[in-house]
């Protein structure tokens, strides 16, 4: 699993990257009440808006940590947005992307580097 400074995570299997937000981000957001996931077939570049997570108070953008095409979205979040708080780094994923530039993944932080980054916040 790799991480961004915007608190997204990426887990890669073959050329498919699953994307979500970290436990830290879920904690900061508070209770998630609505998630807008991307449409299958949408193409995103690294840094583009990928999903929107809404708490009681605010809407927050989730950015694509890597470039690619959306091949699956987590439709289960429509009925159970609280999954993002409960299991942010497993069942609370937002989308699966077919990587268009796999080298982007290698440039992201690993778990140790991300933990160290959190220590600086």
């Amino acid at each position, binding site marked *: 699993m790799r991480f961004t400074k915007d608190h997204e995570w990426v887990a890669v299997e073959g050329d498919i990257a699953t994307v979500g937000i970290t436990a830290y981000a879920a904690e900061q957001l508070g209770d998630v*009440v*609505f998630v807008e996931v991307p449409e299958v077939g949408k193409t995103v570049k690294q840094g583009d808006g990928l999903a929107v997570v809404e708490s009681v108070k605010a809407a927050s953008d989730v950015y694509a940590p890597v470039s690619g095409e959306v091949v699956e979205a987590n439709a289960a979040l429509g009925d159970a947005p609280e999954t993002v708080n409960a299991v942010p780094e497993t069942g609370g994923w937002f989308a699966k992307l077919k990587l268009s530039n796999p080298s982007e993944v290698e440039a992201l932080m690993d778990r140790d580097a991300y933990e160290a980054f959190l220590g600086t916040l």
Partner: protein
Amino acid sequence: MSDQDLKKTPLYDAHVASGARMVPFAGYSMPVQYKDGVLKEHLWTREHAGLFDVSHMGQARIRGTDPAKSFEKVVSADYQGLKPGKQRYGVLLNAQGGIIDDLMTARPDDDGLFVVVNGACKDNDYAIIAKALEGEATVERLEDRALLALQGPEAAAVLAAHVPAAADMVFMDTAVLTAFGVEAIISRSGYTGEDGYEISVPAADATRIWNTLLQDERVKPIGLGARDSLRLEAGLPLYGHDLDETVSPIEAGLNFAIGKRRREAADYPGASRIGAELAGDLSRIRVNLKVLEGAPAREGAQIADATGTVVGVITSGGFGPSFGGAIAIGFVPPALAVVGARLQVIVRGKSQAAEVVASPFVPNRYVRKL
């Protein structure tokens, strides 16, 4: 404004000790939530009793030979007719009939009027009020007092354990009572739609009283996040969002804030506009919307009619935890402000179905009779 410039209420240390997340609000560092988070705090208040620090709000005394008469030059409500022991909602008006602030005015004793105004507006409010009172009455800011709100169905039982006389009050009653060993100005009111009290106490005693109330297992501290979702569900407008200097009290659906005697005398600022609006000449009015599909529609989202034509804007919106869905307050032409009317809200470019619903979203639980 940097964090160093933010003011602190007398309860700042107590909030930090309770694990509050502090944010800048109205020039103060205020708790937006505690450890439980907005959702749980909201539901706790609806089921038990929530304790809020609202000390950032302005508290003042207006004194003079006839303070209500002088005060009425800039506000809409009938304060000359306000009986001792009662409190009344009103709006401070500009010359065009726009709302400079909304405020609560009480006659808790025979020491003039007691006024509570919004924190972000207070300096401007006091300047306007002082000018209106000039030579007739004075406005004295009560900087050495804190303000606590205890809200929820168990609030009355909680407070009665400390202040038995509070149990005899009904909605909008006010009194100066000895409470927690000090002189407290207590009103049975609040801004959550629940039964409850606002309690003004000396700043030096605020932390002790706060902690005493929190020792009751029915009481939890509640932050500004849940305060906002509670007042939204209660269908109550918020200054700086649903109310501003362009909005008249009639557009805002606050007709009750113009006293009957005042309407007849038409002796308040902006009376010509407000009189015309009361007679039906109105281009927009506040409505409650239930968002039927999609994301919550928040402040700034456009409202469109069934054909897609933009007809208005959302001024407050979010998720109603007790309502169980997305709700919003906005302004639309009166012809569309009919319960059951189908409209659309535009969120991030997407049109989502919405419906005009009655206010409040969640039934009020004010105690009007004992």
